């Protein structure tokens, strides 16, 4: 029951950050909001595993944490250099 309440609190936070992601004035706001949404989803997947009583699926959270960081850094690099890659 407690985990369900936490999941709902997560969805409220998700909604608040989603508003910033959609309405954000500059691109950096949006990148920041997307990164925070990624963190919240990582936590929500782990909590959901505990809620269903099968917390073995935390591997997905690890994958998300990896992919979220890589994606954010890729977006920022594209903004900085105008292209991906070395040259």
């Amino acid at each position: 029951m407690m985990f369900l309440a936490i999941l709902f609190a997560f969805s409220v936070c998700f909604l608040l950050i989603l508003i910033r992601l959609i309405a954000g004035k500059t691109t950096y706001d949006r990148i920041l909001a997307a990164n925070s949404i990624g963190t919240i989803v990582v936590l929500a997947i782990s909590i959901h595993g505990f809620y269903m009583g099968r917390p073995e699926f935390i591997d997905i959270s690890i994958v998300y944490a990896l992919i979220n960081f890589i994606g954010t850094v890729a977006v920022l690099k594209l903004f900085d250099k105008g292209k991906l890659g070395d040259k």
Partner: protein
Amino acid sequence: MIDSIINYSSIASLILGILFILIGSIGILRLPDVFSRIHASGMIDTAGTAFIILGMCLQSGISLITAKLIFIGIFIFFTSPITGHVTANLARKKGLKPISNNKGETL
């Protein structure tokens, strides 16, 4: 006895973590510019994540799940400041100014 202590402390740390994450998301929504929003984002990524992962670790006891949770916690703890730093650096480089204080000086 010890079980109930662990259970209650886990609930307390989960609630504390949720509180931090809620404050952080309100901050991301309400604060005026990028540089101040990075503070709120950092609050989600460090304090909120750390407390929630501590709560889940206390729930699961000593097992492989705890090790994975600690790995996630360490990983987010190290990568999110890098993301915030790169964002702020790039915003500064592209000409965004932090909002000024009352005397009109940019900080």
